[in-house]
Structures are given as structure tokens and as C-alpha cells.
């Protein structure tokens, strides 16, 4: 195992695990604001409890996001030192801004939101929920800006010592790649939030306990789910895909499994890319669709991998292909499920349609998989570049950290994160089985007094 591979796995593993948490934080943040708003306007105690219930899950999720997020900022330096040395002047900037503009805001208002309900007014409590949501979305923005610069470097200047420096603050923040990716990614977070909320609602309805909350959660989850699952494909996914096609032809060709340049290129629905024979095995193809999706006409020519020098092919081509197909396949399923659920909700049959409730319940892991696969598509698609077109991944890792030391800490993280995964599941499961009706926590407080 080469040091390069170890450092890549190290970052990939820790970031993948980390992002399981923020995607729910960001999606749920918005949904909690919706619950709180209804509660504030209607004065309904039920909606207030519903929002408090999700705030507890949000709180657990947030902490797991924080503790797995801290390592990320450090890993730029520990595992990717040469990259950091050269690019720090640019991407250190949005990373620091995340801390300064988002984390302070988020942590301050989360403290108020979770601990301070008795110390502040209802309106202020609602405001804290809004600020927490805003903080999480600002945080996402700065991370996307960071990634967007690696995908599509803009607004930089190269100093004599090889370092990059930023020349325009606004151009860095308003990188078109970043804006498109941001819309797509945040919609993805709302998909996760909606599915989780709908799944818990479905669980309560199926279980027959906390039915009144089951109805609230399913309703909010399905409505938000319908909007976000459509928006993730059109317009956000569509626009982002077209931009990738224009700027990273190698990535798009590999994602779609297009080995040969074609006009009227078809889209591969299923099939296994074969790098040796340079074709898709067992393909199921719909003609002309790929040309249409990218260029809006069925005849357009789409660049295949044959036009791209071999040393610029994404280095994990099959993985890239599968990531993209898993994301897109699941995305299609999401729309179908949410349309069906929304239709039944409208016909007032959803709360008793047990088989649809079952589908909603067991589907909650899929948005996590789709979001992860989406990020894998973006990051594997960028390979072999660390900064697209400017710096190769093989030039960026910490050369002073040997493969042995890297593997040591990677194994350490794997062990620690397995434990975290178990603990998280237990904690959230407890909250869900305790339910939104106040029993356990307040009783608890009474004993503590």
C-alpha cells in the first residue's frame, strides 16, 4: 500500500463518515424551523413538542457532526501537507470563514435553542431555531466553496514560491461551480431530512404509538420530500451535470461509461464498465438520451474517454461509474416514492396505507447512500487531479507521514467510528422509542432536583 493510497483512504473514510451527520443537520434544521413556525403561529402544544422531539435528535446528530468534523479541518494539514502549503492561501480562507461565520453562530444559538427555552421568549426561541438552521447552511456553503475551488479553480494567482493566493474574494465565493453544487447538495440534505422525518412518522403510525405525531411527521416529511426529490433532479442536478460536462469532460465520460465519442450518445442505465475491453458489459442503453441531457439535442456529440489521454482518466473509473449510477438510480426511486405518498396524502389515505408507510420507513437509509454516492461522484470524478488541471493528487499528500503511520491512524479512526456509529444508533433509537410526548426527560429532571 502506497502512502498516497493510505492518505486518500484516510480522508475518504473520515469525510464519508462525517458527512452522514451534517446532511441530516442541514436538512432537519430547515424542517425544525417549519415545525417551530407552525407552533409559534398556531400556539399548538403538539407542534411545539414535535419540534422539541426533533431538536433532541438534531442535538445528538449535531454533536456527532462536530466531533467527526474537527478531524477534517486538521487532516488537510496532517495528511495533505504539500497541498495545504500551496493552496492554503486560497482554500484556507473559506475553511476559516466556516469557523468564524458559521460555527460561532450555530453553537451559540444551538446552546440557547436546546438549553435555554426557559430563559428566553417563544419568539426568541423560534429565532434561535432559524439561526441554527442558517448557521448549518452557511457552514455547508463554505465547504462547497472549498471543494468548488479544487474542482474548478478560479480567482487565483500563483506566487513565485509556487503558492496560490486568492485575488478576488467575491469571485472565490461566487464560483459558478460552487453555486450549482451548493444548490444540488443542500437539496440533497433536505431529501435526507425529509426521508428521516417521514420514516419516523411512518414508524409511529405503523406501531400505533404516538399516532398524532406520526401524522405530523409523515405529512411534513412527504411534502418536503416531494419538493426536494424533484428539485434534486431538476433544476439542480440537471444544471450541475451540464456544468460538469462542460468543464470536466473526462469525469462525465467516466460517470456515464462512455468509452467512445458519439453523436447521439445513449444513456447507460445498467451495465458494468470494462476497462480492458473499453466497453460496458451487459448494457441496457436508451439511445440519444445522454446527448439530449447534456446539450438539449439528440444529435449532439459527447466526448468519450477515447479523446482523453489515459493519464487523465479518473483513476478509479468503475467506482466513479457505480457511484454516479447509484445516485441517479436512487434519485429516480425517491421521486416515485414521494409522488405516490403525496398523492395518497392528498387523497387522505396515506396514514392507513400500510404498505406505503412500510416503504417510507425502510427507505430512510437510501438518501444517505445517494448523498454519499453523489460526493463520491464529484471527488472521484476530479481525479487524478487534486486541484483540477493544476495539481495532481500524487503531489499533494504529506510526504513525511509514512504509509505505516497513516495506516495506524486510519485503523484507529475506523475503530473509533465503529463505536460512534453504534452509540449514535442507540441514542437515536432511544429518543424515537421515548417519543415526543414528555415522559422520560422531564421525569428525569424531577428526580435530579
Amino acid at each position, binding site marked *: 500500500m502506497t502512502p498516497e493510497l493510505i492518505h486518500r483512504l484516510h480522508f475518504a473514510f473520515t469525510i464519508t463518515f462525517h458527512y452522514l451527520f451534517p446532511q441530516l443537520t442541514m436538512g432537519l434544521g430547515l424542517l425544525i424551523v417549519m415545525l417551530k413556525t407552525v407552533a409559534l403561529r398556531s400556539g399548538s402544544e403538539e407542534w411545539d413538542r414535535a419540534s422539541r422531539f426533533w431538536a433532541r435528535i438534531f442535538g445528538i446528530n449535531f454533536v456527532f457532526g*462536530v466531533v467527526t468534523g*474537527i478531524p477534517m479541518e486538521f487532516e488537510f494539514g496532517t495528511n495533505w501537507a*504539500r497541498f495545504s502549503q500551496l493552496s492554503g492561501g486560497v482554500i484556507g480562507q473559506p475553511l*476559516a470563514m466556516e*469557523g468564524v461565520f458559521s*460555527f460561532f453562530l450555530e453553537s451559540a444559538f444551538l446552546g440557547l435553542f436546546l438549553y435555554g427555552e*426557559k430563559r428566553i421568549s417563544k419568539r426568541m426561541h423560534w429565532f434561535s431555531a432559524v439561526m441554527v438552521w442558517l448557521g448549518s447552511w452557511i457552514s455547508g456553503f463554505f465547504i462547497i466553496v472549498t471543494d468548488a475551488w479544487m474542482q474548478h479553480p478560479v480567482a487565483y494567482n500563483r506566487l513565485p514560491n509556487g503558492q496560490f493566493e486568492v485575488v478576488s474574494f467575491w469571485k472565490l465565493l461566487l464560483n459558478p461551480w460552487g453555486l450549482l453544487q451548493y444548490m444540488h447538495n443542500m437539496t440533497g440534505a433536505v431529501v435526507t431530512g425529509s426521508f428521516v422525518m417521514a420514516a419516523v412518522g411512518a414508524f409511529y403510525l405503523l406501531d400505533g404509538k404516538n399516532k398524532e405525531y406520526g401524522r405530523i411527521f409523515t405529512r411534513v416529511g412527504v411534502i418536503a420530500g416531494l419538493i426536494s426529490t424533484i428539485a434534486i433532479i431538476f433544476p439542480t442536478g440537471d444544471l450541475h451535470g451540464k456544468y460538469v460536462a462542460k468543464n470536466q469532460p473526462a469525469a462525465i465520460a467516466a460517470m456515464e461509461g462512455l468509452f467512445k465519442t458519439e453523436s447521439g450518445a445513449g444513456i447507460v442505465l445498467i451495465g458494468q464498465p470494462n476497462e480492458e475491453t473499453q466497453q460496458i458489459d451487459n448494457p441496457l442503453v436508451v439511445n440519444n438520451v445522454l446527448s439530449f441531457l447534456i446539450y438539449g439535442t439528440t444529435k449532439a456529440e459527447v466526448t468519450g474517454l477515447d479523446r482523453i489521454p489515459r493519464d487523465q482518466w479518473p483513476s478509479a473509473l468503475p467506482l466513479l461509474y457505480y457511484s454516479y449510477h447509484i445516485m441517479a438510480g436512487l434519485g429516480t426511486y425517491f421521486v416515485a416514492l414521494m409522488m405516490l405518498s403525496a398523492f395518497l396524502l392528498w387523497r387522505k389515505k396515506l396514514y392507513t396505507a400500510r404498505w406505503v408507510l412500510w416503504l417510507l420507513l425502510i427507505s430512510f437509509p437510501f438518501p444517505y447512500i445517494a448523498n454519499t454516492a453523489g460526493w463520491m461522484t464529484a471527488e472521484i470524478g476530479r481525479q487524478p487531479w487534486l486541484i483540477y488541471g493544476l495539481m495532481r493528487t500524487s503531489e499533494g499528500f504529506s510526504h*513525511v507521514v509514512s504509509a505505516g503511520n497513516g495506516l495506524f491512524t486510519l485503523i484507529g479512526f475506523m475503530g473509533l467510528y465503529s463505536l460512534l456509529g453504534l*452509540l449514535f444508533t442507540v441514542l437515536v433509537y432511544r429518543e424515537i422509542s421515548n417519543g415526543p410526548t414528555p415522559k422520560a426527560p422531564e421525569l428525569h*429532571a424531577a428526580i435530579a432536583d
Partner: protein
Amino acid sequence: MMGFIWFWLVAVMIVGYVVLDGFDLGVGILHLFLPRTEAERRASLHSIGPVWDGNEVWLLAGGGTLYFAFPLLYASAFSGFYLPLMIVLWLLVLRGVTLELRNHIDMGVWQSLLDGVFGLASALLAIFYGAALANVLRGVPLGDDGYFFLPLWTNFRPGIHPGILDWYTVIGGLVALVALTLHGALWLTIKVSGDLEKRACRLINPLLLGLILLTVASLIGTIAVRPASLNNYYQHPVTFIVPVGVLAALACIWQFNRNGAPVKAFLSSSVYLFFMLAGACWGVYPTLLPATTGVERDITLSRAISGPHTLSVGLAWWLFGMTLAVAYVVFVYSRFRGKADADIAAH
């Protein structure tokens, strides 16, 4: 000029982190032995519940600031201190998670396991932070390219090829351990009441005595390990006010604690931490990371500083953003001022 400004801005972030996260680390260390009943343990944890993760943000914001203002330093130090940093990360993870679990799970046996891990992780973090600072003051074996890699220990002697841990950095670790324990105890005297408050009060003088001895030992040690640390002080004798300030702050803690002025005692302890860190920064300035392998290999301010555009762009948003951040911090602390609510079940 930009170099000077950013050096001290990063220093301010570090001081902010140590002063703020310092007391919740201290409460964590004290959690090992000070609270005796379940109610006391809860009270002590509630005193940091709403603020601890905000305090940790200073570390992230400081790390990010270091990253873009001094990319070479960030890259070299973080990869060179690879192993201890990873251990610090694991400890931060364990600490955050055990604290959170502690607030949720309520099962006898597990409770004490979580308490133990939370306390130990806090104590080890304090030690690692102290040792890390001492490593920077002592210097590291930088190569020509500005990089190094340190093993966790070699023969426990500072020298050209030291380890992370040697007698000098261990003293640094102990100073941090005792200083932050004291800092946490002072915080508890503000935030809790009853028996727990009394016990925290009684702990202060012994801790203070230990801290005075260790502080003096660390000052002597620093001069012995890197005599050049005094250069700036001799050139600008007025800056000897820093070590005087350290001792004065220690005296104030004693005085205010005796007079029953816990807030002032806590602030004095913050001032102590501030002077210790500022004094250390001044001792190395304008070097950022001294080399044990020869002065010409030092990572200096001018060598590590980012390009001029980056720094001026950064300064604008940094000042704006940190003003906002300080406003949030003040707001939250003022909302939670006074004794902690013992009756609020954790979220």
C-alpha cells in the same frame, strides 16, 4: 506589517481557545473526583453544557486562520506532529461524545464508564496541549524543505532530535494540566452551589501552589532549553511586564478566592493563561517554529506568510466575522450567567 498583525491575530484565537475551552476541560478533569453524587455530577456538567461546543469552535476558527495566513507552518507542523495531533483528535471525539451520552443514557454502570472516559480524555487533552506548546518553544528538527516528523518519544531529552515527549515538554504538559484544572475549579465556584461549590473552593489553594511551582519550573526550563527565548525581552525590556503579569495574576487568584469573589478569581486565571501564552509567543517571535537543526532552518514569519492579496482579503472578513462571533459569545454567556440550572434535563 501584515505578518505582525496576523501573528497576533492567530495568537488571539489560541488564547481565546485556551481560556474558553480551558475551563470546560478543567471541569472535565475535576469530574474524575470532585462531584460525589449523581446530582453533583449533573450540576457540574450543566455548568458547561450550553457552551462547550462553542468553546471548541475557537480551535477550528484558529486552525483555519492559521491555515490561510501561514500555510507553510500549518502544513509543516500538522504533518510533523502527525501522531500527537491524531491522538488529540481522538480525545476530542471521545470527550464530546461521552459528554453527550452522559446527558442521554441513564444506566448505572455505563454512567461511571462515561464519566471516567470524559474525565481522562479531558486530562490527556490538557497535557497534550501543554506539551504541544512546549514542543513549539523547544523547536523541532526541521529539514531544508521546512518539514519534519517527530516520534512520540526518543530518550526524553530535548536535543537536536527530540521526541514529542521529553522532560521539558512533560513539564509543559503538567503546567497545562494544573492550570486548566484550576481554571475549571474557579468556573465551578461561579456556576455551582452547595457542597460541590465548597469542595471546589477548598481545592483552589493547593492547585494554585502547584501551579506556581510548575510555572516557575517551566520558565526556567524554557530558558535552559532555548536561551534565545529571552532575546526579545532583553531587546524590549518593557516586555518583562509579561512574566510579572503572570505572577500578579496568580496572586490575584489567591486574593480574590480568599475574598469570595469567584468571578474576579476566574478572570484572573484567564489573565494568567493570556500572559503565559502571550509570553511564549513573544519568546519565539518572529519565528513561528524554531528548528533544533540550526537557526537558518527556522520557519519564520516572513517565510510562512501567505501572499499579500490573501492577507488583505482575509483581514476584512476576519475583523467583521470575529466581531460578530464575540457578540454571540457575550450574548450566550450573559444569557446563561449565574448559577447553572440544575433542573433542566439535558436536551
